[in-house]
């Protein structure tokens, strides 16, 4: 069984202008990205954005309509899946129901001609802590256990890239959290490149070294979780990762180190490095947790202020309280306040000022849809 493993050199996974069309529908459009060897990369996006299709193209289960996929120096775009040094952990695990846990894990090794698999399988069982379950059938295992078997089955082959297709989706919250930590630990220990596809932004931010946010077949922004979160470049990213307040404004001064924007009769300033556009109409954005609500009239240096908002809703969320504040121009803005217990909470009807430090402002292209990426109850 031949595979295209090179023995030396960087084994970065490179997607070069990959496009996938199904008839007239474009699932993935001109996508280019580089996943450094040994890193944990998350492909994040809502369902239907093309992330699973991208993953399947790397696995070889779909063929790109255009573009190429390379592993280090090897072009793998046209290789069959069984010839690629890439393994997948499937969304519903796809464990072979007629084989035991042992045989499931050993499957890949056996197909490549390995005679004695006892030792390797044993090590894997230890890694995922399933030693006492090796004779059981998949149907006799719990969801979390099946997930770990699927992981072991893929890892045992020491692939150059491990692909994970929303593997934690079927698990309940607590189990999901512990598996996230577990996966990260294993990845660090084993040192293999992980490409993790998910729609759960918290999951991506927790686990990944680099996140690529995908929307309608393209990667809108790619970077480290922190920079993606604090400096979103598109409305979609700003709404999909966490939540954002976006207010319409117009740039009046772009000459200096700061941008000055006219918003609803007030001047708002922010760092130029946080601006996606530097002229014309913009969305002025700020994260709800960066916003302070006060009843005082003070305007401290270096803070942006929106005045005369009326608290319209108070939601107690345990760790924090979420406030909806209706501004004079009609828009409702969100503020999160950590429940430190230091001060009394606000009530509906209170008149407040919204304040935030100018470094926390970001600016986005006004031509983009401010609702992009916002999660609606009806799934719209």
């Amino acid at each position, binding site marked *: 069984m031949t595979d295209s493993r090179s023995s030396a050199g960087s084994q970065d996974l490179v997607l070069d202008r990959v496009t996938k069309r199904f008839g007239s529908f474009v699932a993935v459009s001109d996508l280019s990205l580089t996943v450094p060897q040994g890193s944990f990369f998350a492909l994040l996006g809502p369902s239907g954005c093309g992330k699973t299709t991208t993953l399947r193209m790397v696995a*070889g289960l779909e063929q790109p309509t255009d573009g190429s996929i390379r592993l280090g120096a090897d072009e793998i775009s046209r290789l069959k*899946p069984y010839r690629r040094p890439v393994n997948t952990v499937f969304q519903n695990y796809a*464990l072979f129901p007629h084989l035991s846990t042992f045989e499931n894990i050993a499957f*890949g090794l056996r*197909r490549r001609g390995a005679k004695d698999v006892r030792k390797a399988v044993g090590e894997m069982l230890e890694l995922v802590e399933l030693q006492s379950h090796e004779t059981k059938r998949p149907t006799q295992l719990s969801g979390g256990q099946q997930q770990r078997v699927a992981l072991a089955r*893929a890892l045992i082959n020491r692939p150059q890239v491990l692909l994970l297709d929303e593997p934690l989706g079927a698990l309940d919250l607590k189990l999901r959290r512990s598996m996230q930590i577990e996966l990260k630990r294993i990845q660090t220990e084993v040192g293999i490149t992980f490409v993790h596809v998910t729609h759960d932004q918290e999951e991506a931010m927790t686990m990944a070294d680099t996140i690529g946010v995908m929307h309608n077949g393209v990667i809108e922004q790619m970077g480290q979780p922190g920079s993606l979160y604090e400096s979103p470049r598109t409305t979609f990213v700003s709404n999909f990762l966490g939540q954002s307040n976006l207010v319409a404004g117009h740039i009046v001064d772009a000459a200096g180190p700061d941008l000055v924007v006219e918003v609803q009769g007030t001047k708002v300033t922010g760092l130029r490095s946080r601006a996606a556009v530097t002229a014309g109409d913009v969305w002025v954005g700020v994260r709800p947790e960066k916003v302070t609500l006060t009843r005082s009239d003070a305007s401290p240096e270096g803070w942006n202020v929106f005045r005369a908002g009326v608290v319209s809703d108070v939601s107690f969320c345990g760790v924090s309280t979420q406030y909806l504040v209706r501004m004079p121009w009609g828009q409702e803005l969100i503020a999160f306040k950590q429940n430190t217990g230091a001060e009394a909470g606000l009530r509906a009807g209170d008149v407040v000022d919204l304040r935030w430090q100018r470094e926390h402002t970001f600016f986005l292209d006004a031509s983009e849809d401010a609702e992009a990426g916002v999660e609606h109850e009806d799934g719209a």
Partner: protein
Amino acid sequence: MTSVRGVRRWVGNHLVLGAALLVLLYMITPVLVVILMSFNDPAGRLGYDFDGFTLDNWANPCGPYQLCSSLVTSVEIGVLATVLATALGTLMAFAMIRHRFTGRSAANVFVFLPMASPEIVLGSSLLALFVNAGFAGQLGFWTIFVAHVMFCLSFVVVTVKARLHGLDPALEQAAMDLYANPWQTFWRVSFPLVFPGILAAALLSFSLSFDDFIITNLNAGQTVTFPMFVWGAAQRGVPMQVNVVGTVMFLVALGLVLASGTFRRRQRG
């Protein structure tokens, strides 16, 4: 709580079940009669009453002329037809479920048609073919074989398709992801998982073939299968050994079904 209301509710709850059991009884009774009659010592040739108990029929099952030879013929045709029909039908089922091509829905309908035709029409059209092709004098074993494969195919396809439908395509993709080429994927993953469906299809095919009378009779020429033997005997007086054969078939098939059930239950752990 033995109130009238309680009784009424018990009856209401169990009404359907009661009716069902009655129907089951209705279905089983003739089988019981067959088993009973296998021990019958008939008074006359044409009588169809239970006259006396005897084990003679079981001791001498091949007594009546042509009974056992027709049985052998039926089994031979059954096995051959089953093998071919199952093989062809399984291939077709895989084609229809796993591959995309134009005309797939047309193929679906086409395969379904023989199942939906009355046997007399299927049989007569085949006879018309053989006569027109000049084979009127060669009707026999092989024309029966051809007919049986034809009508078993549809049943095999439907049965295997049903099983294949439930087979998650992700499993085959996982196999390929794990270095199995298409051949290995089929043998190691698809086939073992579809096998119960293929087996069921084969058993169905054999019983359909073995039991067929109408189509067979029209296309048999001088060859005699077991159902044809029984039919002919019905005019002359049915030997009780026929019921012996019926009982044996019933017990064998019942045994197979129960055995496969316990085997599957043990496999599940």
